[in-house]
């Protein structure tokens, strides 16, 4: 299975997937930690994919999303954004709708 196919499967298996550095309980980067924290505050049930454990996924997700940075949030297979965007959506109330929608 190619990396792209792997990623496709990951984002289709679960509604809310966060590609991050580290794990939701032990984030290894401030931006990744922030998004995990926001999802927890929204009581969202999500899967964390630790890109530090897999260099192929780490590069693969950047190619897949055509987005150069980590963290990356996917909801129902759709790319939502990185830390800046998720933070802004959280603050203006939009995120809760996206997570529940």
């Amino acid at each position, binding site marked *: 299975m190619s990396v792209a196919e792997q990623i496709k499967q990951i984002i289709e298996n679960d509604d809310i997937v966060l590609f991050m550095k580290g794990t939701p309980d032990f984030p290894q980067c401030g*931006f990744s930690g922030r998004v995990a924290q926001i999802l927890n505050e929204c009581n969202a049930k999500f899967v964390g994919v630790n890109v530090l454990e897999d260099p192929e996924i780490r590069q693969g997700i950047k190619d897949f999303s*055509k*987005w*150069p*940075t980590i963290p990356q949030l996917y909801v129902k297979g759709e*790319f*939502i*954004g*990185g*830390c*800046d*965007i998720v933070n*802004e*959506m959280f603050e203006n109330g939009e995120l809760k709708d996206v997570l529940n929608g």
Partner: protein
Amino acid sequence: MVTPQEIKTWIETGLPNSSATVDGDGQHFEALVTCPDFEGKREIQRHRMVYEALGSKMDSTIHALSIKTQTR
């Protein structure tokens, strides 16, 4: 080590009609990008425009970049 000034230049060169204010410590940067072409575009679309302007610089040169956008 890359400087805020370099990032500002790269953004403004790669994204026509834009102006950027960039701060940073050499590792983590913050950019406020103003461009009328952002009008009507969702935040994620605007961020993509900035990333596209920076192109391959995002591969390794710039470690972290926080982006805020406005139309004027």
